[in-house]
């Protein structure tokens, strides 16, 4: 692994710990809470799961932020759409540098749903969370997390700094070189649409 990814690697380990905690709670704590079969126990389970989703998702964002800070010099937005653009940028290849996508469209789709859940979860009281909705999103998080980590780790391991287009030396000086194939950006941003110009969902491959 290139040293520039050291911080990203640290973030990966942190979020793995957060995820392991969520899974451990699911196995060792939540069954006994549900066994009480009381309204407050069920609401507490939902609150715990929602908190786990928020913690893990925020950790995943931290991972992507660090990776993108290395390979793309950051996320192409500082405004309120930053969270949306973060995962969209990770799901797109970068035609400027020639890097491949970090996560697949399927993982992107799952993360986008978790992002929406986190938005709503942060805007309602915990005791008003819907048990089924929280459980569905928790299962979604449990399902996508290993794939996400695998894809990011594979990306980091396979990333070659000397293949970045920006780093390619002057052709006349370096002679024959293999240029990386520029990949067309797949993010759907309709620059001409006034109201819809901030849709950042990447296309399915």
């Amino acid at each position, binding site marked *: 692994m290139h040293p520039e990814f050291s911080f990203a690697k640290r973030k990966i380990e942190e979020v793995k710990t957060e995820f392991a905690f969520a899974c451990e709670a699911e196995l060792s704590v939540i069954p006994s809470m549900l066994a009480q079969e009381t309204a407050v126990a069920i609401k507490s389970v939902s609150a715990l799961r929602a908190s786990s989703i928020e913690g893990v998702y925020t950790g995943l964002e931290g991972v992507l932020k660090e990776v993108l800070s290395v390979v793309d010099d950051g996320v192409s*937005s500082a*405004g*309120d*759409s930053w969270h*949306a653009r973060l995962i969209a940028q990770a799901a797109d290849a970068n035609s400027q540098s020639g890097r491949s996508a970090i996560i697949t469209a399927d993982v992107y789709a799952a993360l*986008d*749903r978790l992002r*929406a*859940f986190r*938005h*709503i979860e942060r*805007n*309602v*009281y915990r005791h*008003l*969370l*819907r048990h*089924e*909705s929280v459980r569905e999103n928790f299962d979604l998080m449990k399902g996508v997390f290993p794939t996400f980590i695998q894809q990011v780790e594979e990306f980091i391991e396979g990333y070659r700094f000397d293949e970045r287009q920006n780093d390619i030396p002057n052709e006349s000086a370096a002679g024959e070189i293999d240029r990386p194939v520029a990949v067309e950006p797949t993010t759907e941003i309709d620059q001409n649409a006034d*109201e*819809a*110009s*901030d*849709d950042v*969902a990447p296309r399915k491959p």
Partner: protein
Amino acid sequence: MSVYSRVATGSAEVLAERQRVAVRKAVGALDAVGKLGFRVWVVGSLAKGRFNVHSDIDFVVDCPTNREYDAFRAIERIMGDFPFHMVPFQRLEQDAIPFMMEGALDASGILVRQAKD
């Protein structure tokens, strides 16, 4: 014109512009969610005429739980970088509804409010 007057004028212009953008985006978002077949309102400072330069836009959407993602994305698509909050109507507590929905406006209400302001 004193420094304070110039600052006040500048602030008023910034606020007016921000409010124009907010209203345009709010109307667009209300329309987008309405097209999904859900009832939706703007609540909070923009609806109550207390909008300021730091305000975001608060939406309440009446939709099934399994369609909350669609409503969120419809609003987000319009809002872009403009800060907003979406709260599903069904997540509101009964005794919080009167407070939360006080002054709630639909698209036409927002435009009327803007005309008044």
